[in-house]
Every structure is written in structure tokens, then in C-alpha cells.
């Protein structure tokens, strides 16, 4: 059986994570930033699954479920914040949300 080497998965995971980071830092739209965070989470999920498969252990798979649950909860809270922000600021630009500072 032809097995795709783990390094392929890890490379893809790294690329996805990098894209997430770049999106997270450079995008101003709060929804986009949100999606970048999801992208990073899923990149990590991919790495977990790949390792679990390669080492034939369930630990990694279990951890993926945890991450998905946390991501879902985060999305629920995060999107609620986004709606609240959108209502008060009439905008989704994070740079305008900067009241909490020195």
C-alpha cells in the first residue's frame, strides 16, 4: 500500500498555519481574522491526525475532538462579540476597537 509520508501532511499543516498567522496579523476585518484563527486551529488538527495515524495511537485523534469543541465554543462567543461590535461601531475594522489601552 502506498502511504503518503507524514512530512507531506506536516508541510501542508505548516503552510496552512502560516497562512492563518499572516491573515491574523495583516487582515483588518474582524470576521477574516476569525477565519484565520480557525485556519490555524485546523492546521494544528491536521498535524495531530497525521501523527496519530503515523504512530497508530488514539491520543492525537482524541485531542482533535477537543480542539473542535473548543473552536465551536469560541466561534459562538466570538461571533456574539462580533455582532456586539458591529452594532456599536457600525464597522468590522479591528483597528477602530482600541479603547482599552494605557
Amino acid at each position: 500500500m502506498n502511504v503518503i509520508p507524514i512530512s507531506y501532511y506536516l508541510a501542508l499543516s505548516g503552510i496552512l498555519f502560516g497562512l492563518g498567522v499572516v491573515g491574523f496579523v495583516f487582515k483588518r476585518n474582524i470576521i477574516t481574522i476569525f477565519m484565520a484563527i480557525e485556519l490555524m486551529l485546523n492546521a494544528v488538527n491536521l498535524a495531530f491526525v497525521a501523527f496519530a495515524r503515523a504512530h497508530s495511537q488514539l491520543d492525537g485523534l482524541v485531542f482533535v475532538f477537543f480542539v473542535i469543541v473548543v473552536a465551536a465554543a469560541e466561534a459562538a462567543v466570538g461571533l456574539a462579540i462580533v455582532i456586539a461590535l458591529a452594532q456599536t461601531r457600525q464597522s468590522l475594522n479591528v483597528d477602530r476597537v482600541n479603547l482599552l489601552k494605557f
Partner: protein
Amino acid sequence: MPILDHLWIILALPLLGSAINGLIGGPLGQRWTKTAVNTVGVGSVALSFLCVCEAVREFSALPADQIPVFRDFFTWMIAGPFRADFALQFDQLTLVMTLIVTGVGLLVHIFSVGYMAHEGGYYRFFAYLNLFVFFMLTLVLGANLLITFVGWEGVGLCSYLLIGFWFLKKSAADAGKKAFITTRIGDMGFMVGILLAFATYRTIDYREMFAAVSSSPVETHLGVITAICLLLFMGAVGKSAQLPLYVWLPDAMEGPTPVSALIHAATMVTAGVYIVARMNPLFSRAPIAMLVVAIVGAVTAFYAATIGIAQTDIKKVLAYSTVSQLGYMFLACGVGAYSAGIFHLMTHAFFKGLLFLASGSVIHAMGGEQDMLKMGGLWKKIPVTAWTMMIGTLAISGIPPFAGFFSKDQILWAAYAGPYANKLLWALAFVAALITSFYMFRLMFLTFFGQPRYDEHHVHVHESPWSMLGPLCILAFLSTVGGWFAAPKLWDGPDHFKNFLDPVFASAASLAPHITEPGQSIELEFSGFAVLAGVIGLVIAISLYLGDPERPKRLAKKLGALYTLVYNKYFVDEIYGALIVRPLIWLSRNVLWQVVDVGMIDGTVNGAADAARAAGSEARQLQSGNARSYATWVIVGAVGFTALLLGLLGMRP
């Protein structure tokens, strides 16, 4: 033996009186009437005096092998080999001292009832006086150096409190501080002396220390015994107002007159003489230290007497005369005549207490005036004060048969022909005796004779109440007969006072170099010579002050610079001010304050705070409120941490 077994009662009574008056009599609760304060203040000292009398009675019945009476009440502190007990002892020397302290103290308390009647802070005054008596008794009853030191510092404290009794007056407050700080210089030496004594003998207990030293030979070089003695003597110089630390005592006259009588004449200032006499087994083994004591004593006796000539404040004259007489006592100890020194201490307590109280009575009569140049002709108006003061003057001038004659004669004789005789010091003391007689009669003549120099319409001179005159009469009686213990010696009989004290000074006597006693007739002639000094002083005083009132002024003008020098007390206060006080203030202000305190200490503290604030104000810029910049920091942190793991710590995947 109830009292001798419970020596602490003698101490506890004045302390109790002080506590009652100080705590209840004044600020707390209702203010007591003066009668209540009197009763407690005088009563506690009177009871203490009675206890001492009872102790004396019991003591006289003791066999010689039980002397000194030694009572250990409890252990005060133990630290390694160091051990200090609360222990009291009672021997012949203590007996004399406690009798003087409680006896003269009682008379001064009674006198104060009348003298302080119109003063504020009445309860406070008596609380301080009682506290003083407590500490003084602690000093003389203590059986080790540390207990003595407690009393030593305690009387210093009371002296400070009482000199500054009228603390609203700046000069009084300053004088109190001056006394406290000046004696502190000596006390430092005293403290080091105690430590050195402990380091040498592993004990501070008198009995054990004297037992340890009893095998030591006489130390003719500068050794450890000499060092201990000189350090203890340094404390004595401060407390007993000798050169060069005498400057506080004349200023101490700012206190109420009874205080001057009790503390600065009769008792506290004699503490230095007491400690030298108490430590006689050590001093006798350190001839060099004894010589220092004798020189300081003789020079002070002469020096202070010369200053007394030109003073016009009645109390200042007595103050300098006290310094001078204390010098005599040290001279006596320095030439090995300890019992003569203690004898003079006792007679001095009588006649100087008398003189001070009488001067207080004069000041009281004059309504507060202390300048003798504004008195004169008081003899008829206050005869009891005048007569008693005359007796005190005759006593201090060494005119027989008054008390001072016997004690001063013994000191002069010991300096002239004793085992440690020193003719030069004798000459100084002899001239000082002459001057003493002169300035004391000058005081008498200026105060009581001649024409009144005050405004008779404004000053209503009145004799003092009997609560003041009574103590004067008792002290006058004592000043007359107080020296008669030694009188039989004049016709080759025993000297009862010396014989009584001899057991205390036994080791000193055994160490003294042997001399052949000059014959009795020579001693008698010598006594006549000493009386002559007093008479010459009297004659000079008569010729100057009883005749033409302008004559002293003419003489002063003729002497010119010399008179100015003496009148200004040799400018010693100014010299100390210029050499010590001003440089110290300059150093404090310009170096310690501006450089060390402001620059270094404040600089460090404020600098640390400023640095923290500056760092904070820079660092808070990081919290920009911009979520994306936080994200950047998170990434930088993550990358940095990963790099740290991989690179620096050498962890490899």
C-alpha cells in the same frame, strides 16, 4: 534581718512614689491637690530614709565576716558567658552613700514643698525627684557594674528632665540637652570600661571582680587594669563635671534650685567619686590611672575656683564651686586617700546642699533675682537664711570647727604627705582652697552686706516659709558637726570615719607604698596652715567687698585682659563651640545632610522609584489597544521561545 534581706524595698519606695505622682497625680484622672502630691513625694523618700536607718542599725550588729551584705534577687540576663543579676549589696561605703542620698534627698524634698509652691507642673517635679532618688539608690546599692550603670544612666535622665523642667524656656531646654550630651561622651567610656572589665575578668560582679584582681600585682606600665580604670574614670569625668567635660554643670543651674542642690551638688555629681572609690582595688593596682585622677582633680579644683571669682550669678558661683570641690574629691582618690574623698563627699553634700538651698531661699526672697550685683544688705531682712548660709560658707572655706575643715584638711594632708603625695598637686589644691574661701565670702558680702542695690519699692524681700527654713537649719547643723567624726585625730585620737570605711579600702591600703608618717605636731601645724588659706581668702574678700564698693571695679579694670578672661570663664564654651560644635554642625549640614542624606540615601531611594516609573511609562506604550499589535507580540514571543528551545538549549526534534 528584714531590711537587709529585702534591700529592694529601699529602692522600691521612691520608685513607687514617682509612679503614683507621675501616673495618677497628673495627666490621668483628676489633678491631685498639692497636699496629696506632697504626701506621696515626701512620704516615699521619708519611708526610704527610715528603711536605710533600720538597715544601718541591722548592719551595725553584723559580724565582720558577713560584710558586705550581698543579696541576689533574680537573674536579669544571661548571654553565653555573660551573666548579670539583679543583685544589691550593702557595705560601709554604700551605707554612707545611701544615708546621704535619702537624708539630703528628704531635706530637699521638704524644701521643694515651699520653693515650688507657686510653680506649675508640681506633680511632675516630685515624680522626677523621686525617680532621681530611685536611680541614685540603684547606683550606690548595685552589686555589679551593670546595675550601677543602670542607675548611672537613670540619674543622667532625671538630671536632663529636671534641668529642662521649665522646658518652655529655651535656655533651660538647651541646658538639659547640653548636660545629657556632654555626659554621654563620658558614659561611652564607662560602657567600654564595663565591657573591658568583663572581657578581662569574665564577670561584672564587684565581689568576683575584686577577688579575681586580688592576685594581680601592681601594674606600673600601661596595662589592662589601667585601661579599665581610665575608661571608668572617663565616665566619672563626665558625670562629676571634671575637666574637660565640666561645661554642662554651670548651665545646669537653669533647673529649679532644689534640683541644683540635690542633683548638681549633693548626690548625682558625686557618682563619679563613688565609682572610683568603689573600684579602688583596681585603681590601687594602676598607679598611672591614679595619677591621672589626681591631676584631673587638682587642676579642676584650681581651675573652677578661679572662674568662681568673677561670676555674678549666685547659683553660677556655687556651680563652679561644686566643680572645684568635686576636683578635691578626685584628688583625694587619686592620692589614695579614698576615705578622705568620701568624707569630703559627705561634708560637701551637707554644706553644698545647704548653700544651694539657702541661695534658693535668697532667690525666693528676691522674687526670682539671681544676680548678686542686684542684691546686697539682705542680712537683716532674711536672718535665718543669712545665718545658715554663713555656716555653709564657713564650712566650705575650711574654717574649724565646721565640717569642711576636717575633710579638706585630710585631702590636703594626703596630697602633701600621703603614700602617693605630690607636692605640685598639693600646691594647686592649697591655692584653690584660698580662692574658694575668697569667692564664697565675696558671695556672702555681695548678697547680705553693704547697701541694697535693688529697687526697694518693687522687690518685697520676705523670709521663706518654715518648710524651707527647716531643711536649712538641719543642714546647717550637719555642716557644723558633720566633720567631728575625724576631730579626735587633731589630738592624736582615732579618725572614726576613716576607721569605719577602712574595710572597703583594705586592699588599697595594703598596696600603698610605705612611708614614714610624719609626726603629729607637723600634721597639726599643717592643719593650721590649711586654715590660714581660708583666712587669707576671707581677709582679701573683706578688704575688697566690705569697704569701698568701687574698689573691686577698679581692681577689675587694672587687671584688664586677665579679668575679662576669667569673667568669660576662659571662653571655654566659645572654644568648644568653635572647635567641636560648629565643625560638627558644618559637617552635618554640608556633608551628612547635603551629600550623604540628600545625595546618597535619598538619591538611591528616589532614583529607584524614578527608574521604575520611567521604565513603566515606556513599557505601558506596549498596551496600545490595537489587537493586531498584540497578535504580533504573541507571534514574536512564540517564535522567540521556539528559537530559544531549539538553539540555546540545544533541544532537537
